[in-house]
């Protein structure tokens, strides 16, 4: 209760008395204030939702964030560029590699360095692998949040294959820190490509399993269809991005529509959208995106070019003065970095635009009038990582 915020006065004792008084005067039901989180399984982390309930219906919801705020924007000002990647690894910790990519890209743009093709392709592969690792977990987690235990375990089982691949290539399961300005730390190990192909086929099978056990399930549909509808215009105004926005019918994917980056311009892939904008649509879009990502990895493996993995880079990284805005399509949505450099070894200011922050900022609007079980469905379907909200 430390972070009780002014403007939303919450004294549970006072409210209880108020409720009692109301019941005594007339048979009116008082609102109950319920704290969902910061230690609640549905918030997978330390998000706190203060909801005002009338029965089981939410009258108002106020997300309280910041329990995990680590002040990365401040810390980046005290780090050199190579050190910053260690920090930003931990923003969205499920897809750490994908976090590194835009920052390194920004530094490379400012320094006018271009990574060699092989490094670019391996980066693309690892980005897509981390996309799979992230979203695959969602595919199971969503089941867990609406009450189906089993898919969650399947998700963890198959994600292990992807994490093993990332570990084999980078040495780190969760926080690879594998990107260097101008390329990558290492090349892929022997046998990795064959192993990767096998894993991708397993992932594609696993997606079919999820489709069978959840998408085709009447109860799952009853719980998710029509729940938490985000209108496209409102979602965009709130900065909701990624699969959450594509599930509202917005056909926009930075891999295809943004400034060309990594090997995406050379890939053949489809951007999936769904017109409904509800929780089911978000699940469905992510399911298709996982499949698409697995197919992309297979494509990338087929066309992997040879050559060096590191461009010529000065030993001491000094980034010329300038500003750079880059954004990439990360598993959770759009991640952007606004890097301001003053020509030193470290950035002067880094604005981190993380996807979950904007995705979650729509919650007060989205949760009004829904039932408590739907709160959980909506939270799960928005799919946020606490580190990505709090930075």
């Amino acid at each position, binding site marked *: 209760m*430390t*972070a009780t*915020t002014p403007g939303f006065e919450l004294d549970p004792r006072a409210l209880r008395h108020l409720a009692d008084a109301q019941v005594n005067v007339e048979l009116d039901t008082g609102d109950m204030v319920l704290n969902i989180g910061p230690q609640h399984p549905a918030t997978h982390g330390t998000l706190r939702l203060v909801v005002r309930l009338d029965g089981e219906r939410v009258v108002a919801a106020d997300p309280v*964030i*910041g329990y995990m*705020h680590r002040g990365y*924007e*401040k*810390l980046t*000002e*005290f*780090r*050199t560029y190579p050190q910053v990647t260690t920090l930003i690894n931990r923003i969205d910790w499920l897809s750490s590699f994908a976090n590194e990519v835009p920052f390194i890209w*920004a530094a*490379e*743009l*400012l*320094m*006018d*360095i271009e990574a060699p093709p092989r490094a670019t392709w391996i980066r693309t592969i690892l980005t897509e692998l981390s996309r799979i690792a992230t979203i695959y977990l969602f595919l199971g987690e969503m089941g867990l949040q609406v009450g189906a235990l089993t898919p969650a375990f399947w998700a963890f089982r198959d994600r292990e294959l992807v994490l093993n691949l990332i570990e084999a290539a980078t040495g780190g399961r969760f926080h690879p820190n594998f990107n260097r300005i101008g390329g990558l730390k290492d090349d892929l190990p022997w046998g990795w490509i064959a192993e990767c192909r096998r894993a991708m086929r397993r992932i594609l099978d696993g997606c079919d399993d999820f489709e069978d056990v959840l998408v085709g399930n009447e109860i799952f549909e009853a719980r998710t269809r029509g729940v938490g509808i985000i209108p*496209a*215009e*409102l979602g*965009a*105004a*709130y*900065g*909701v*991005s990624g699969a959450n*926005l594509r599930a509202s019918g*917005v056909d*926009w994917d930075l891999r295809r*529509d943004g*400034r060309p980056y990594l090997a995406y311009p050379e890939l053949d892939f489809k951007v999936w959208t769904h017109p409904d904008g509800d929780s089911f649509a978000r699940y469905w879009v992510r399911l298709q995106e996982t499949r698409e990502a697995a197919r992309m990895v297979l494509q990338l493996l087929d066309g992997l070019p040879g050559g060096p993995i590191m461009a010529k880079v000065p030993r*001491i*990284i*000094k980034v*010329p*003065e*300038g*500003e*750079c*805005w880059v954004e990439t399509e990360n598993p959770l949505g*759009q991640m*952007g970095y*606004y890097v*301001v*450099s*003053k*020509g*030193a*070894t*470290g950035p002067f200011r880094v*604005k981190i*635009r993380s996807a979950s*922050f*904007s995705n979650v*900022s*729509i919650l007060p*609007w989205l949760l009004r009038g829904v039932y408590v079980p739907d709160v959980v469905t909506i939270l799960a379907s928005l799919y946020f990582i606490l580190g990505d909200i709090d930075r």
Partner: protein
Amino acid sequence: MPEEAAETVPAAGAGGAPALDERAAAVVERLRDRLGDGVIETGSACGSPVVRVRRDAWRRAAEVAKEELACDFLSFISGIDWQPAPRPEGEDGGDTSAPVQPAEMTFGAAGSAGRFQVFAHVESTTRHHGVTLKVDVDDAEMRVPSWVPVYGGADWHERECWEMFGIVFDGHPSLRHLYLPAEFEGHPLRKDFPLLAREVKPWPGLVDVEPMPGEAAGPGEAAGGAEEAGS
């Protein structure tokens, strides 16, 4: 000051940042057309257009971006403090591990009139272009019109900006702490706000590093950063 910025930005451009392409230039032209003298200066952030507008045109700029440029997507709103962080002066006090930034105040793309700026990025989900808008904040007044009436999502971004920089957004429904506890004092992202963790205890990476020969003031940085004192 803007003259300085004008000198430095092309230098960065020569170092890699491409000039604005046609689409970005069209966006800037449109803004200039609609806002008139509301646009003070334009620049480029590695090819992404940056437009600095006058404070009284700040909300109008958002409206124009949203209505006429179809920039319906709010990417972020944040602030920037251009004043260099004070370097520790004592022999053994303070943090010496951070990269050394230039001591004089210089401004980035599109310049600035003072220490604080608010900048925001909006994008179009349909036309796939975007623009970064900047507005100067008067040091004494620290007020900027809010974007909440235009972009609903500006709510949290402005709350963050307010608590981190102390910039007040006029017209915001409830400026209250977002990340930090309600009783928190100070504005952490201002450059003069010390990173206390580094003040009370030196960066652990420093412990084993011998001072470089000829280096006077304390140990340099871990690894390669140590040589920066010489350059």
